[in-house]
């Protein structure tokens, strides 16, 4: 099961993640304490990794020159002043403090969490649209090979170019498009861009999955005189699960990225993208505050990807990818 990377993947993602778990999965063992212990160890190591990042940050802040390292007129290492690099504990401590000095202000973490929830909602809407369009396209491409030949090269090509650049243009659609009672809302522009980024990995993962059944299985279905729909439901969709899950996870991560970027470029209020920019603007007086929404965005990405991973737990029986040959 080597993959030299002929498999094209979303440009906004990485290749390894597109492969079904087949080649990275440890040998199956009956669940039990061993599994739990391994899960715990993984968390511990991850925390250690995080600690290293923090240590590097604080170490450089302690030892690095105040004006950073400038080579040939370009600053290659950052300034270490408290303004440029606040202490990690300051960033975290700032989360508990109120956003502004006004007495009625909410704490920063709450503001960030609410904004993150708004963005998550928009990203989820975009993700759903991306799933529908991506799986739909994959079904069409699987059904008619001429469609695959006609569409797939464009999908692959469009992954390699920064089409997301058109995000600011979509803003112009807001409140100008009206179809009957339907009026184009600003958040829809954001969801549209999120769905656009989500759909690539899903379309490609779904197509791969739908095409993954071995000849022996398709012929078995043929020998049962099973029609297209029966083959789809009993064979192709279950077989696609191990391919779909990583694709859906990447789609979710992409939807979050798309939503954040689109919020920034369309200037939509209420989401995390907006406060990212807003708090960064106040960084000269309150440098630690700018990190609040960054932590929010990180958690947002992890939550989105993690929710899809939960789906994988539910569908675990479909992930017994070891061929029963």
């Amino acid at each position: 099961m080597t993959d030299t990377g002929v498999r094209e993947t979303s440009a906004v993602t990485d290749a390894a993640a597109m492969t079904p778990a087949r080649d990275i999965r440890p040998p199956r063992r009956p669940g039990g304490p061993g599994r739990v212990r391994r899960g715990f160890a993984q968390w511990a190591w991850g925390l250690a990794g995080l600690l290293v990042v923090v240590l590097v940050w604080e170490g450089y802040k302690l030892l690095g020159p105040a004006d950073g390292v400038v080579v040939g007129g370009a600053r290659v290492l950052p300034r270490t002043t408290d303004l440029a690099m606040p202490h990690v504990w300051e960033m975290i401590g700032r989360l508990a403090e109120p956003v502004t000095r006004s007495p009625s202000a909410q704490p920063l973490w709450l503001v960030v969490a609410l904004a993150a929830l708004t963005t998550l909602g928009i990203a989820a809407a975009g993700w759903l649209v991306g799933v529908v369009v991506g799986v739909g396209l994959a079904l069409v491409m699987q059904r008619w090979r001429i469609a695959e030949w006609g569409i797939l090269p464009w999908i692959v090509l469009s992954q390699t170019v920064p089409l997301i650049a058109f995000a600011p243009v979509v803003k112009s659609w807001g409140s100008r498009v009206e179809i009957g009672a339907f009026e184009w809302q600003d958040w829809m522009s954001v969801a549209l861009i999120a769905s656009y980024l989500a759909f690539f990995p899903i379309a490609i993962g779904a197509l791969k999955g739908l095409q993954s059944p071995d000849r022996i299985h398709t012929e078995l279905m043929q020998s049962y005189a099973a029609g297209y729909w029966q083959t789809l439901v009993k064979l192709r969709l279950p077989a696609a699960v191990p391919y779909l899950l990583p694709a859906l996870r990447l789609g979710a991560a992409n939807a979050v990225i798309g939503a954040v970027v689109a919020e920034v470029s369309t200037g939509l209020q209420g989401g995390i993208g907006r406060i990212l920019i807003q708090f960064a603007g106040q960084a000269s007086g309150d440098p630690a505050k700018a990190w609040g929404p960054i932590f929010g965005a990180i958690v947002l990405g992890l939550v989105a990807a993690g929710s899809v991973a939960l789906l994988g737990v539910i569908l675990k029986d479909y992930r017994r990818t070891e061929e029963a040959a």
Partner: protein
Amino acid sequence: MATPAVTRPRPTRGHGPSPRTETTLRIVAPVAVGLLVLGAWQFLVSVVGVSDYLLPSPASIIEEFAAYWPSIASAMLITGANSLVGLVIGSVLGIALAALAARWRPVDRMSAPVVASLAVVPIVALAPVLNSMFGADSQFGRQAIAALASFVPVFINTLRGFRQTTPVHRELMRAYAATPGQVLRTLTLPTARPFILTGIRIASSLAVISALVAEYFGGPRGGLGSLISTSAASSAYARAWAYVVASIALGLLFYLVTLGLERMLQRRAPQAGGRP
């Protein structure tokens, strides 16, 4: 054991076209789809009358492209340079850390969760604070974003490549009493090379996208991203689209160059792939 099913072409659905027709269709079909979309677009704009702010016509975009070529070219240069610097830094760091992770288990265990998280979080969110860390007039914030974004696929693919050496080869090296350096040169690197190149190819597109998107988050103007948002903000939609087209061209350039590099190095060593 005879397993003929493996060596045969994949099953046709019903009875497929003959091999020669297939080759032709594989070229004709995408071209036809492309022309169809372009035609439908122009039709929507010039016959149905879709307004400019929704979708400018291809013709007007080309016009703007020609009219603003000097500014487009310099913007491509700025964004392209940022992407390139980011790609190089990210790739070097990715390969180096992957080599460490392949060598020392603790590094692997500590970096795996961090990199996995990095793959799903919006890295561009760092853009505003990077601008204040490196100074508002510096392009380095964008380069750092591009570097972080490229780092992820390069690291993951390289680590994968380093793990591809088969036990039989490693034991052979042991039997030859090869030094670690020799093992690296004659076995590990050639096996990992296709994986590294794939990582860089994927990273190339990511670098351009990230460098461009980072411009939406503030910092010095003049790059493609900031020009797109300025044009869109001043309702010059066709011009904004012209810059979008330029970004596409830039992304394609990066992709094709890295693809060419991959092909070139692969051809020189066709058997380097770690297929067992």
